[in-house]
């Protein structure tokens, strides 16, 4: 039973230490290693709570509503690369420890450096992933997130806000840049009038909650489809047929009115011509008092007819503009339908619009994804700090104990990732 020296004694009073006390140990290892193992046990509980939360939230989500990796743009191969990087770093830190144990200081330092670089590589890949999530607006809900769990009025209002901003941005840029092809603005206008305003109107007018929901869901589906929705396809087809029928019924009315208007205008020009003629006739021969003779009966009749015709023309114009008002949204809607229905990947993805989208449970997915990978990345960062502290030191046999403890921690970080990889990337 050899006397044990504490690892973390202040070095300045080490000289004047009294005779160290003799202890018996329950476990055949240094205090530092025991403490690290105990610490790892607490870490197991910490990650159990986090991973357990993920597991129960995920498997408790309604059947089929958890987003697949593809829907949220998680790239499996990136995860696989990171797994590989961490496995490599696990091996290199073992080698660093072995080298330190046999007093090969340069080799130890080299292996540790490689480990540090690999850890940085891991964080780099993580950074790429996070950046892509951020640029797609895929993070827990806050004003700038684009994720919505369901298509409700909040989704609509958020969508309209974002759309207005995008339009304003593009209108400010006088000349179209290479970023956006000139048609983008047109597309946005079409989305605004043919889809957003249409749906808002429908939701506002309809009394039937089921119709409201379908309108909202089909809107969300067209923006960002997640799966085949025959019900929505049918709803859209029905709507299209309905609109076309309306268009059919409105079109003859339209031509009727136009011909009516034309006739009226013709009549007006004829009448005003004849009135003008009659008047000039009348005015050419004044009587003795210098007064003009009173208008003739024909003239008065003509005038009355003119008033009638003008009124008819005015009515017709009004009806036409009314019809146009009625017709315009239908036309825009039909245009939007024929333009946008063909995209299987949705409008958002197809035109790279970055508008809010509905992914059921997308928020819960984002919450758990960032929580798990974030806390894991935090552990990686802490590991890097420790590596950077160790790198300038002489990694000889004395420091091999420290190296071993750091290695144990790093392996634990690796093990956590070994479980996170399939759960986040492959499930």
């Amino acid at each position: 039973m050899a006397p044990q020296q504490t690892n973390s004694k202040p070095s300045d009073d080490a000289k004047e230490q009294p005779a160290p006390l003799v202890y018996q140990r329950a476990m055949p290892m240094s205090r530092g290693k025991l403490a690290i193992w105990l610490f790892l046990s607490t870490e197991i509980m910490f990650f159990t709570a986090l991973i357990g939360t993920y597991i129960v939230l995920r498997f408790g989500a309604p059947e089929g509503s958890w987003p697949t990796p593809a829907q949220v743009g998680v790239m499996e191969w990136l995860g696989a690369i990171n797994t590989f990087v961490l496995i490599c770093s696990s091996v290199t830190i073992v080698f660093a420890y072995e080298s330190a144990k046999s007093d090969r200081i340069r080799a130890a330092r080299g292996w540790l450096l490689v480990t540090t670089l690999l850890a940085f590589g891991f964080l780099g890949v993580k950074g790429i992933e996070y950046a892509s999530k951020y640029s797609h607006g895929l993070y827990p809900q806050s004003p700038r997130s684009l994720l919505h769990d369901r298509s409700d009025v909040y989704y609509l209002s958020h969508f309209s806000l974002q759309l207005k901003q995008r339009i304003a941005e593009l209108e400010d840029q006088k000349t179209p840049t290479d970023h956006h092809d000139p048609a983008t603005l047109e597309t946005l206008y079409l989305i605004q009038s043919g889809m957003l305003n249409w749906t808002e109107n429908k939701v506002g007018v309809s009394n039937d909650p089921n119709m409201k929901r379908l309108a909202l869901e089909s809107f969300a589906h067209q923006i960002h489809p997640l799966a085949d929705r025959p019900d929505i396809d049918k709803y859209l087809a029905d709507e299209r047929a309905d609109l076309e029928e309306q268009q059919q019924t409105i079109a003859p009315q339209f031509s009727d009115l136009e011909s009516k208007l034309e006739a009226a205008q013709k009549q007006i020009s004829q009448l005003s011509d004849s009135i003008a003629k009659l008047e000039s006739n009348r005015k050419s021969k004044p009587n003795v008092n210098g007064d003009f003779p009173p208008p003739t009966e024909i003239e008065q009749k003509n005038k009355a007819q003119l008033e009638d015709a003008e009124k008819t023309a005015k009515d017709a114009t009004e009806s036409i503009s009314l019809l146009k008002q009625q017709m315009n949204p239908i036309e825009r809607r039909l245009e939007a339908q024929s333009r946008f229905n063909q995209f299987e990947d949705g409008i958002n993805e197809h035109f790279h619009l970055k508008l809010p989208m509905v992914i059921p449970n997308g928020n819960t997915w984002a919450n758990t994804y960032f929580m798990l990978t974030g806390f894991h990345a935090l552990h990686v960062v802490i590991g890097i700090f420790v590596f950077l502290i160790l790198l300038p030191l002489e990694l000889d046999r004395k420091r091999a104990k420290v190296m071993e403890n750091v290695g144990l921690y790093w392996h634990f970080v690796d093990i956590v990732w070994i479980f996170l990889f399939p759960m986040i990337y492959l499930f």
Partner: protein
Amino acid sequence: MNRFWSILFCLVPILGTATFVMAAWGLPPFQGAWLPKNYSVAGETIDHLFYLLNWISAVIFIGTGAVIGWVLWKYDHRRRDQASYFSHNTQLEIVWTIIPAIILIFIAFYQMNSWAETKMIRPTISQNGQTINKPPMVLVMAKRFGWEFHYAGPDGLIETQDDDYIENELVLPVGTDVVLQLETRDVIHSFFVPQLRVKQDIVPGMKQFIWFRGTDIAEMDIACTELCGWGHYTMKGRLRLVSQKDYNLWLTERRAMQTPAMDPDDPETPQVLEERLP
């Protein structure tokens, strides 16, 4: 001096038991400070269990208290030169492990029926020859800081558009199994009627069912027993247990002057919580 302390410690079981007995019998100054009068069938078993557990506790309480008093009285250091030297007695250890274990396991099994009746086995009705769970009579919607009680409209179902709701007043018939569906609009609340021995937390995002059978016509308070904000103590509802006849009468009167409730199904009415407190 030891005797003084012995008496002091003896007072714990003596006064403790005495006050419990006084409270249970309603003697002054503890009148009313005990289980309130029970108005539900399941409450009788709960009360019975409460009394049983109190009896068991009293035996242990008085027993251990007496031992403490006796020890202090007897083993004063002024009257003894030497303490006895013993450090264990395996038989005794086994005895006082086994006996409490039996008592505890007995309690565990004894109360399972009551738990199952009050919280697990929902009353059933037979419909088209099948036995199905009894549908809820009222949808209790808790909110900060009040209760909405949604009664079924003419279609006889709750959670439909023709529901009719009243604030803070619940009227239920006695003598029949009443099933309530509990939901909340915002934070966690708890539906507590002391006289019915009914309590259930109402968790956002969950629907829950409670049931009971009232035994007598009465009027009682409904309290919220889960902290729900500044006005937690103001969440007061009144429950009137009336006879089936009066209940039917009341229901027809209500239907005559119906006010439509909010439709929970409408996408226009998402959950809106109150703003953060200043």
